[in-house]
C-alpha cells in the first residue's frame, strides 16, 4: 500500500523539466496552486488543464506514474465529491430523493472541486517525480535561506527532510520484517473489533520505534564523526544553476498567473 504514494518518488529520466533548477520548480508549483485555487470559470479551468497536460508532456514521465499518485486519495476525492454534490444549496434542482437534493450548482461545484484536486495532486507529484529528493531539499534550503535572519532554520529543515527521505525505504522494509516476525509468533492483525486491532499494533509499533530511535542515535554519532556542525560554513557538492530555461519557465508561470488574475478582475468589473 505504501508503495502507491508517488510523492517522494523520483522518476529518473532526461527531460527539460528534470534539468531545471529545483527552485524554479518549487516556485512553479506555488504559482500553479494559486492558479488552481483562483480558477472559477470553465475557461480558467481549461487553461489550467492545458498547462498541466503541457508540463506532463515536457516531463517525459509516463502518465501512469502520475496517476498512481491519485490512488491513495480516491476516497478523499469521492468524499468531497459527494459532500459538494448534496450540500450545495442554491441553483436549479435537478432531482430530489428523500432528504437529498441535487442542484445544477451542486454538480458544478462538485466537478470543479474534483478536477481541482486531481490537477493539484498531479502537479505536485510532478515536482517530486522530476526532482531528486536531494535536489528538492537543496532547493528548499536555498529558497528559505533569506528567512534565516528571522530565525527560520533553513539548513536544519532541509537536513531533516533529506534524512527522512533516506530512511523511508529502510523503515518500510523493517516494518515488513516486524509484521512477519510477529505473525510467525501467532499475532493476528486481521480479526477482532477496532480496539483489539489497535492493540494488535503494539507488537509492531514498539520494535519499529525502538529501532528508529536506535538508528537516529547511531546516525547522529556517525554524522558528528564526519565533522557535522550545523549549516555554518558548509559548502555543497551540488551546484544549483539558475539558467535561461529556468528564467523562461518562471516568466511563463508569472504571466499565466497574471493572465488568470486579469481574467478575474475583468470579470469582476463586468467586462466579461
Amino acid at each position: 500500500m505504501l508503495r502507491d504514494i508517488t510523492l517522494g518518488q523520483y522518476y529518473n529520466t532526461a527531460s527539460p523539466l528534470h534539468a531545471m533548477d529545483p527552485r524554479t520548480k518549487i516556485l512553479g508549483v506555488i504559482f500553479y496552486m494559486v492558479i488552481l485555487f483562483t480558477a472559477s470559470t470553465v475557461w480558467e479551468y481549461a487553461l489550467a488543464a492545458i498547462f498541466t497536460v503541457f508540463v506532463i508532456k515536457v516531463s517525459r514521465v509516463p502518465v501512469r506514474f502520475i496517476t498512481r499518485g491519485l490512488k491513495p486519495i480516491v476516497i478523499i476525492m469521492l468524499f468531497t465529491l459527494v459532500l459538494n454534490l448534496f450540500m450545495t444549496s442554491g441553483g436549479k434542482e435537478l432531482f430530489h430523493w428523500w432528504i437529498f437534493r441535487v442542484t445544477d450548482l451542486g454538480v458544478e461545484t462538485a466537478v470543479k472541486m474534483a478536477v481541482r484536486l486531481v490537477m493539484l495532486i498531479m502537479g505536485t507529484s510532478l515536482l517530486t517525480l522530476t526532482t531528486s529528493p536531494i535536489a528538492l531539499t537543496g532547493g528548499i534550503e536555498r529558497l528559505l535561506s533569506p528567512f534565516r535572519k528571522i530565525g527560520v532554520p533553513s539548513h536544519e529543515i532541509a537536513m531533516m527532510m533529506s534524512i527522512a527521505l533516506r530512511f523511508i525505504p529502510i523503515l518500510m522494509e523493517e516494518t515488513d520484517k516486524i509484521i512477519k516476525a510477529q505473525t510467525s509468533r501467532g499475532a493476528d492483525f486481521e480479526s477482532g473489533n477496532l480496539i483489539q486491532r489497535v492493540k494488535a499494533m503494539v507488537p509492531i509499533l514498539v520494535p519499529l520505534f525502538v529501532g528508529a530511535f536506535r538508528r537516529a542515535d547511531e546516525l547522529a554519532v556517525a554524522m558528528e564523526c564526519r565533522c557535522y556542525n550545523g549549516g555554518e560554513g558548509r559548502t555543497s557538492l551540488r551546484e544549483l544553476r539558475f539558467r535561461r530555461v529556468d528564467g523562461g519557465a518562471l516568466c511563463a508561470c508569472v504571466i499565466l498567473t497574471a493572465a488568470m488574475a486579469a481574467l478575474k478582475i475583468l470579470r469582476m468589473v463586468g467586462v466579461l
Partner: protein
Amino acid sequence: MSIIKAENLSFSYESEGAEVKVFENLNIDIDEGEFVAVLGHNGSGKSTFAKHLNAILTPKSGRVTVCGIDTADESRLFELRKNVGMVFQNPDNQIVATVVEEDVAFGLENLGVPREEMRRRVDEALKVVRMYDYRTYAPHLLSGGQKQRVAIAGILAMEPRCIVLDEPTAMLDPIGRDEVMETVRRLNREKGITIVLITHYMDEAVKADRCIVMDRGKIVMDDRPASIFPKVEEMRALGLDVPQATELVWELKRRGLNIETGALRSAGAIESILKMTRDQL
C-alpha cells in the same frame, strides 16, 4: 612513528547506580602505517577503546593522543576527526544522503571544502573503493558490502591518516566481507593509512600486521598473528577462535606427530602436513 598513543587510559560508566569499569590503565602504542586488529569477546572493552580514538568518548583518566592531538582537547575536535575516520557496524546508519556521491561529499561539505576540490576528492575516493560506477545510486539499492565501501569512501575523501573500523563486516555476507577487507587492506598497503580493525572474525585478524587481544579491559596479548593464533588453548580460554588451518596443525602436534605449527592459512597448513608426510616416509 607513533600515531596512536593511549597512556594509563581508564574508562567506566554508571549502571543502576554502580560504577562499571570497562578498562583501567590501558597502554597502547600504534605506529603510523600499521594494520592492527583488536580482538576480544563481546564486553572485552574493544569497542569502547575504539570510541576513544576520535573522541566519541573521552578518557575518565589518562590520555589518548592521536596524530599528535589530545582527544580531550575540544578546540581541536574537527582536526582530530578529519584525521581519524570511523566506520561502524551498520552501514545503513552511517549513510546520511540519498545519493552515493552526495554522501561521500558529506564530510567535505561540513569542512567547507570548495566545490571543485570536493568534486575531485569525491570522485577519487569512489574510484579507490571501486564504487565510482554507482555514484548516482540511492544507497538502499546497494548491497551491504557496497554500502560499507561507500561509508569508507566518505571517510577517505577527508584524507585521514588513520581509519578505525568497529566490526565493519559483522552484518555482511561473505562476499561483502571480502569486498570490505580487500578495500581496507589496499588502503593500508597503497596509501599507508593506519588501520585499527575491531573484529571477531579470526580470518580477518590473520590479515593484520599485529593483533591486540583484549579481555575484561586488559590487553592479554599483543603480537604478530603468527605468534598469537598458534596459542590455541589460550585463545579458546579467552572465548576466541583460531583459524581451522592453525587448529589442524596444532591438533596433529598434540597427537604426537612431528609437525611444524604456526600455519594461519590453508596453504600454510597444507605445506606443513606435506612436509611432515615427506619427512616420515
